[in-house]
């Protein structure tokens, strides 16, 4: 594979942290985390078809303290990735590129993600 000529995303360690760059890397981190989470939730649901013995192994993890923290972070990741994903889609449509708007939509995204995460556990 010749990858010397392919463009790369900027590596964040070179820059001073800003809300824009933090949100960008958070999108990747939450995406990566959700992948692991979705695989586990998939196996959890698949286990219902395999049998109660296998199910109990995964349920043991999910209902443990670590599992509860994991489930909470999984849904928080989805809320954030969902809101920031919509922000990305509006950029793809050509809106919101002005620096001022990038910041405004950034704060709206964080607010919406937190609100969604609270509502999620109420309803």
């Amino acid at each position: 594979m010749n990858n010397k000529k392919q463009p790369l995303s900027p590596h964040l360690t070179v820059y001073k942290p800003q809300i824009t760059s933090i949100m960008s890397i958070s999108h990747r981190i939450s995406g990566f985390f959700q992948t692991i989470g979705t695989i586990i939730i998939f196996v959890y649901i698949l286990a219902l078809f395999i049998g109660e013995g296998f199910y109990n192994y995964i349920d043991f993890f999910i209902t443990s303290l670590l599992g509860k923290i994991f489930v909470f972070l999984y849904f928080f990741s989805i809320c954030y990735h969902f809101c920031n994903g919509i922000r990305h889609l509006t950029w793809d449509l050509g809106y919101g590129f002005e620096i001022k708007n990038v910041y405004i939509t950034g704060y709206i995204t964080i607010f919406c993600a937190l609100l969604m995460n609270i509502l999620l556990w109420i309803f």
Partner: protein
Amino acid sequence: MLNSNKKNNSESGLNHWLYQKVTAVLLIPITIWVLLKLPKFIQLSFSDKLSWINSSLNLYLIALFFIISAFHFKLGLTVIIEDYIHNSIVKKYLIITISIIALLIASLSLGLCVYKNLGG
């Protein structure tokens, strides 16, 4: 030779971008449903979970979520691997691994729906 490679690269880049966006848009409504249902589902007992998944609508929608998610995370993780893993052999095998996992999740999800339809 170099030119045709260049063309293939830009074409696959465009396709990648397009598939990422199409799966993202498809995931918007299905994610809202998942966020409304899944937190409660997790708290159910084994037998209640089983009767929840025995409802065709629930099974089809969660399968759809897994299928579209599998494509979406395959595309997303490929970009992350390409950006941060610089050893080309490790890179190649990680991308193959994530492709196999995505394909397994998508095909097993589809399989469960077919199984359900056959009266299993």
